[in-house]
Structures are given as structure tokens and as C-alpha cells.
């Protein structure tokens, strides 16, 4: 507690130098400012207010500090290797394997390196279709999720504080894709509950009269399920954002300056949410691009989403199609990595 008070009062450069002395790593962004001049300038006044620091700072080259430094280096090496071995290595292996397989480098039926599979894949309607279709569905899902979130938050900004809202969001969040897909099929399918209700209401005469919403041409059921799966995440994030950037106050201010209720929502709150939430939008897009269970259960046979198409080509009976599965995998991994890079870069430049 004491230290946090002191830390607040001393300048950034002093704080970082102290942390480095303690054997900790200071990020490059935080290390931007310190100069020898500023360090010596602030050092005295700051160390004087805490006798312990004053005594330790004079023994900067002592044995214990050196040891601590060495052990923290060791710790740094350890976590980096854990991250590399556990997470990075399998990912890199997967990417390299997919690329090599698609270029004919490996594979039982392969006859040497070739770009034949890529040329076939580019002219194959099912693969190009899967590529375009996945992007279309992901964009549509992101759009619908954002529209629903923004619409809800702008109209009922107070709802985010209610217990019922939180419980509903948490239950939705805990419902996996498989369950959502099944519920949507139970309610909206040709033999589902709505179809039965319409039958009893006399609107239709058999299950076939009900408009197909599952495994259909326009992928209504699939899109609804993916949207329902991502909606709680987005609602939770944007409602936290609403509180964190104090949009309520801005709306109040706008209204007291003469804006109408709608103007305050549409011209003040909405741009603020959109500007701050861009990284979340990217994340929603990536997550919907990679969805698997829902398209597997509710999607149509052709075109299919990335994951389903790759799985079908890779584990199908026709082994000659296997390299094309890896072409699709390479395409997917490249796109996802690029969007992810944009996401990480955005996060980094906005923190």
C-alpha cells in the first residue's frame, strides 16, 4: 500500500529504474522516457522518503542483487520456453505441415513437390465457395451480433446493471454451440416447435409447408445459432465498455446541451462504442470464421464453412482430395493469423 502511494508520486522514469534494479523486466513502451539526467534528478528526493530504498539503492552491485537478477533471467527463459514449446511449437508445426502437404512435400500419394494442388483448388468451386462463404457468414454474423448488442445497449442502457440481465448473459455464455444448435433446430426446424404451433393455429397443413430454416439455402438457422453463441460475449464486453468510458455522463452532457434522447444515443454513445470496440469486432469476426459445431449440424452440404469443409476433405474416403484440404487449411490459417496480427497491433497501439 505504502509503496503504491510512493509509486504514484514518483515520475515514471524513476519507477522503471527501480524495477530494473529489482531484477524485473520493464516493457519497452514503459522504458521510453528515462534518461540519466532524469534518474539522477529524481533519485535523491524519492529515496529520501523511504529509508529502506535509500539503503538498498547504495548497494546496487551487491551479491544479492546480482543473484536476484540472474534468477529472474532464468525465470524469463523458463516462461519463454514454456510458451514456445507448449503453444508456439504445435501451431508452427501445424502450419508447416499443412503447407508442405499442400505443396506435395509429404503424403502417401504424393509424387514430389508441386503447385498442382493449389491450381486445382483455385479452380475447384467447392473450395473457392468455402472460402467466400466463410467470409460472408463471418461478416454477416459480426454485423448481426454488433447490431443486436448496440441496439440493446442504446435502448436499455440501464439493463446492464440488473441481475436478471447478468444471469441471462451468463446462462447464454455457458451454453455451448452444440446445445444452441440443437435448441434452434428444436424450435425453428421443419419439425420444430414453431412449425407445430403454426400447424395448430391453422397456418400450415403439414411440416413441409413450414419455410426451411435449418440446413437451408440462406443458412438462417446456422447464422442465428452462431449469433446467439457470440452475443453474450459481445454484450458483456460492450456493457463493461459503456461503464468504463462513462458514456452515461457524455449522454447526460449532450442532453443538457440540448440534444434529444435519440441524438445523444446515436451521435454520442454509438460512435464512442464503435471506436473503442474495433478490436472486439475483429475478435468476433475471427471467432465466427472458425466456428465448427454449429455449421456441422445446421449448415448445408455445399458450400460449407472452412472448418467443416477442411474436415470433410481431410477425413473423406477420397485420398486424392487430401492435399486440397490442406490448401484450405493454409488459406484459413493465413487469414486468421493476419487478422489476429491486426488485432494484436491495434491493442498494442491503443493501450
Amino acid at each position, binding site marked *: 500500500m505504502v509503496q503504491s502511494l510512493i509509486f504514484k508520486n514518483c515520475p515514471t522514469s524513476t519507477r522503471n529504474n527501480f524495477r530494473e534494479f529489482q531484477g524485473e523486466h520493464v516493457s519497452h*513502451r514503459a522504458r521510453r522516457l528515462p534518461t540519466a539526467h532524469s534518474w539522477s534528478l529524481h533519485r535523491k528526493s524519492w529515496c529520501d522518503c523511504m529509508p529502506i530504498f535509500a539503503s538498498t539503492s547504495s548497494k546496487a552491485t551487491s551479491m544479492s542483487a546480482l543473484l536476484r537478477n540472474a534468477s529472474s533471467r532464468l525465470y524469463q527463459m523458463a516462461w519463454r520456453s514454456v510458451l514456445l514449446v*507448449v503453444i508456439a511449437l504445435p501451431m508452427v508445426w501445424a502450419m508447416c505441415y499443412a503447407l508442405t502437404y499442400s505443396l506435395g512435400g509429404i503424403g502417401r500419394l504424393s509424387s514430389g513437390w508441386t503447385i498442382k494442388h493449389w491450381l486445382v483448388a483455385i479452380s475447384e468451386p467447392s473450395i473457392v465457395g468455402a472460402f467466400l462463404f466463410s467470409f460472408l457468414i463471418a461478416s454477416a454474423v459480426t454485423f448481426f451480433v454488433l447490431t443486436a448488442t448496440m441496439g440493446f445497449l442504446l435502448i436499455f442502457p440501464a439493463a446492464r446493471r440488473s441481475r436478471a440481465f447478468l444471469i441471462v448473459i451468463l446462462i447464454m455464455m455457458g451454453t455451448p454451440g452444440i446445445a444452441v444448435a440443437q435448441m434452434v433446430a*428444436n424450435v425453428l426446424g421443419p419439425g420444430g*416447435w414453431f412449425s407445430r404451433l403454426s400447424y395448430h393455429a391453422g397456418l400450415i397443413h403439414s411440416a413441409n409447408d413450414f419455410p426451411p430454416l435449418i440446413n437451408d439455402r440462406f443458412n438462417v438457422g446456422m447464422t442465428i445459432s452462431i449469433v446467439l453463441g457470440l452475443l453474450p460475449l459481445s454484450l458483456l464486453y460492450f456493457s463493461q465498455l459503456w461503464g468504463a468510458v462513462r458514456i452515461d455522463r457524455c449522454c447526460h452532457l449532450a442532453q443538457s446541451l440540448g440534444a434529444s434522447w435519440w441524438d445523444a444515443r446515436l451521435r454520442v454513445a454509438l460512435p464512442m462504442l464503435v471506436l473503442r470496440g474495433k478490436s472486439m469486432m475483429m475478435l468476433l469476426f475471427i471467432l465466427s470464421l472458425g466456428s465448427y*459445431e454449429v455449421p456441422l449440424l445446421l449448415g448445408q452440404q455445399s458450400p460449407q464453412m472452412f472448418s467443416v469443409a477442411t*474436415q470433410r476433405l481431410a477425413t473423406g474416403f477420397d485420398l486424392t482430395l487430401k492435399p486440397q484440404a490442406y490448401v484450405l487449411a493454409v488459406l*484459413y490459417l493465413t487469414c486468421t493469423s493476419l487478422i*489476429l496480427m491486426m488485432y494484436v497491433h491495434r491493442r498494442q497501439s491503443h493501450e
Partner: protein
Amino acid sequence: MSDTTLSPRSLRVGSRDWRSRSIIGLALAIFTIPYLLLLWLSLGTGWSYPNLSPDKVNFGPWKTLFADGNELLRAALTSGLLSPFVATLSTTIGMMVGRQVQSHRGIWRFIAYLPFACSPVIIGICLLDLFIRVGLDGSLVGVFAIQSIFASAFAVILFSELWSPEIRQMENLVQTLGGTRWDVWRHAVWPRLWKLSAVCWLQTLLFSWLDYSLVSTIGGGVVPALTLSVISYVREASMNQAAHGTIILLVPPIVFTILVGGLLRRRVPTGAVDG
């Protein structure tokens, strides 16, 4: 602000109250229908077309659950045994690595996010060959290994995003007051971290419990899992069995998510921030 000035908005809120309440009530009703329908279906047998409820409500699927050699029970037990191990390993890795990723941005964060963003089934298909070579395909250990990769990445992200700078300041304080490394963990880090660790443990447990894509690719149908059974029931169109499996599948996530929500809510008092 709203106390001193009676803005037009505050007047309108009063008149809106019953309307918003009724809308919320309607939304809640629509929201609960699918869940209730699923529960209702799991209690009966058959669901022929124009009927709104199952043909016979006889608790059929639930009665056979504890019979010998029940497939669903075996799958649930396997998933239930596997997931705590995955959760424990990945939470430990997340705790070790997460705070470092927070202070190192760029490439390290990109690496941590990669499994989280990529579709597990595509990565699973690309890694299947490696698992076959090592001899881990179609085994519980293989499924454990691949699930741990994804769960660890998730844990690293969770810890790196939610690690507060206060912990670091407390660590410094304990260290400067003469505490050993163990003291730092015991008195500075752990009291502020146990809730986050619990949240992470529960989330990774759920990831493993709900995973379908990794079990189906690496497990190769040999390793039973509840999700595999549910999807096979859905595909063979046995409505009641599928609903029954889904209800069993849904119980831990919903309980744990509400638990996690409670933990996080107490940690971060929202509402105090905005006026």
C-alpha cells in the same frame, strides 16, 4: 447529476418503466422456451409431428442412465475425469506465463492468442499426423495433450489480461521488507490471485468438458466424450436421447458460469465507476 436537474430523460424513464418491464418479461419468456423444451423432451419418449409435447412422459432416458454399460454415463465419466487434469495443468502454465506476456507485448501476445483464434478442428487435423507418429492418437493421453495446448493458451490470455499492476507493487513491497520468494507468493500474490485462478480453472475445465472438435479428430472415436455421443444422437435424429445428453452436458457449464460471474462481480465492483 440526476439529483440536481430533472432532465427530460429522467421523466421519460418513469413513463417507460412498465413498457421496458414488459419487454424484458417477454424477452425472458422467449429466452427460456428452448431450455424448457429441451428439458421437456429429455423427460419423454418420441415426439411425433403435430404434438407440442413428447408422446409419453415416462422419464425414459433418465431411467436407463445408470443401467450397466450406458454409453452416455461412460462418456460423461471420461470427460469428467479428463477435464480437471487439463484444467490444473493449463491453469499452472497460465499463472507462470500470463503475467510475463502482459509486460511483453507484440509477438508473445500473438503466440498466446493463436490457438485461441484458430479453429481447433483445423489445427487438430494438421497435428493428427504428428500424434500418429508419436503414437498418441486415439488415446486419452493424446486428447489430454492437445486439449492442454488450447486450454493453456486460453489460461495465458486470461492471466495476461486480468493481472492487475497492484499485485506487482505488493510483490515489490514484500520483497523490500525482507520477504523471501515464498513469502512474496504467500502474502502478496496468492491473496489477490486465488479468485482469478479459480475462474481460470473452471473455464479451462469447461473448455475440456465441452470440446468436440479435438476429441473427434485426435480421439478418433476411441476416446468417449459426452459431446461425441450428443452429436451422434442428433445425427441419427433420436430427439429425446439428444436432449437428454445435452441437459447433462449443460449442467456444469451453467452452474460454473454463474459461479464465475459471482466471483468476478465481487472482484470488480461495476456501477461505482459510472455516474
